[in-house]
């Protein structure tokens, strides 16, 4: 049985661990709030951008349909999977569930005869992929807690470039969609080719059709659309990066809360054991004293 000293030492150690997990929990919750605020802040931009795109697309398609590289659909030979992971661990199932899903997707796509390419955001994803001896075409790291719009632009540029050069025929992003601090849902998003429904007015918030004909376009709608599509890509990636950042912080917060709770339970158990051990020692000493006294008086 462990001595009182040993137990005391262990309690102290667990207590220190709890301090760390508590601090991480607080930091994660502050960052989570910030990430959520940024998701809110980008919404007006994204909504209006989409609205604008729908209007321009309608004006453009009256002249000449299709022809833009990012909309072009072709036979799928090379598929890029782009998992958005974190740069750091200690975030519960955050990174693991993305990668698990990604490998499932890879098996499915390879089964369909496609050549799978990897482009990955986040250090955790990169290291897991290279550990498993996958060839990673490109990795973007260093911004998973606070992605900037320019980070999304960098990724979007690269993907659009590869797609336009016909190096890739399909691009799928896999990321954690933020539901709550407790729940993050892994989603797959078809990024390229840009789904046609994006350009259709079916969704709410689209520009009212009666205005469409009246606009002056400068330059031509087709040219504006050609420039809007890459920006749409950036916006979608930025949204995914922010969702992923919020999910990472949420997952970390929950994981650290559980860790703190476990530490507290452990401290309780150890303290109890320590008190028992101390009591046992005292009882032992009393028994010895009483036994000694009995021996003398006998």
């Amino acid at each position, binding site marked *: 049985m462990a001595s009182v000293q040993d137990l005391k030492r262990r309690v102290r150690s667990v207590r220190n661990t709890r301090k760390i997990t508590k601090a991480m929990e607080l930091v994660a919750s502050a960052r989570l709030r910030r990430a959520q605020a940024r998701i809110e802040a980008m919404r007006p*931009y994204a909504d209006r951008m989409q609205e604008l795109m729908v209007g321009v697309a309608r004006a453009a398609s009256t002249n000449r349909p299709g022809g833009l590289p990012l909309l072009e659909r072709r036979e799928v030979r090379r598929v890029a999977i782009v998992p958005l992971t974190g740069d750091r661990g200690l975030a519960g199932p955050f990174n693991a569930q993305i990668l698990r899903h990604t490998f499932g997707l890879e098996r499915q796509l390879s089964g369909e005869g496609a050549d799978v390419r990897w482009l990955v955001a986040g250090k955790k994803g990169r290291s897991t992929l290279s550990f498993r001896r996958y060839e990673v075409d490109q990795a973007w790291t260093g911004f998973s807690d606070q992605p900037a719009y320019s980070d999304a632009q960098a990724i979007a540029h690269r993907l659009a470039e590869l797609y336009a050069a016909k190096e890739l025929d399909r691009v799928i992003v896999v990321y954690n969609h933020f539901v709550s601090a407790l729940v993050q849902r892994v989603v797959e998003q078809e990024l390229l080719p840009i789904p046609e429904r994006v350009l259709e007015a079916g969704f709410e918030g689209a520009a009212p059709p009666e205005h469409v004909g009246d606009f002056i376009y400068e330059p031509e709608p087709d040219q504006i659309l050609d420039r809007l599509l890459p920006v749409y890509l950036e916006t979608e990636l930025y949204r995914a990066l922010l969702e992923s950042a919020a999910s990472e912080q949420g997952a970390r917060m929950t994981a650290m809360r559980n860790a703190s709770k476990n530490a507290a339970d452990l401290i309780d158990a150890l303290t109890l054991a320590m008190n028992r051990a101390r009591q046992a020692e005292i009882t032992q000493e009393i028994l010895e004293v009483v036994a000694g006294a009995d021996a003398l008086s006998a």
Partner: protein
Amino acid sequence: MASEGRRTFDVSLVTPEGAVFEGEAELLIVPGADGEIGILARHAPLVATLRAGATRVHVRRGEDVREYATGPGFFKVEQDRALALVDDAAEAAQIDPERARNQLETARSELERVERGESDADRWQLEQRIRHAENQLQIVGGAESADQRPLTSAG
């Protein structure tokens, strides 16, 4: 000029990081792809692309003017509502030269990579970003004199 002639319209300048300006203004000048576009109230509906440059919101013409260094983006006017969607905007008074210099370097190094045989569309955007960073630095450089800039008075 009779001051009753001054009509205002809604102006929104929006970036992915949030709205930078939202409110009424008498005159708005944006850097259109083919030259500056000045918008007054009751302008005809318009959709245009913007290059990196200076966007000026005249809340009161010639008196209360907000100047922003804006990145490339899009512009739309409909029924007394003007909307500028740009990828980045910094108010002239609050430009961080350090940030602008970093942006400039990143964009330049990326452009060098693109230079080794890639598509033109992307290059255009990079050039815009470089111009935007330079634009910011230029506005910062002239920040001391900004107060004395001879704004055309309405009189």
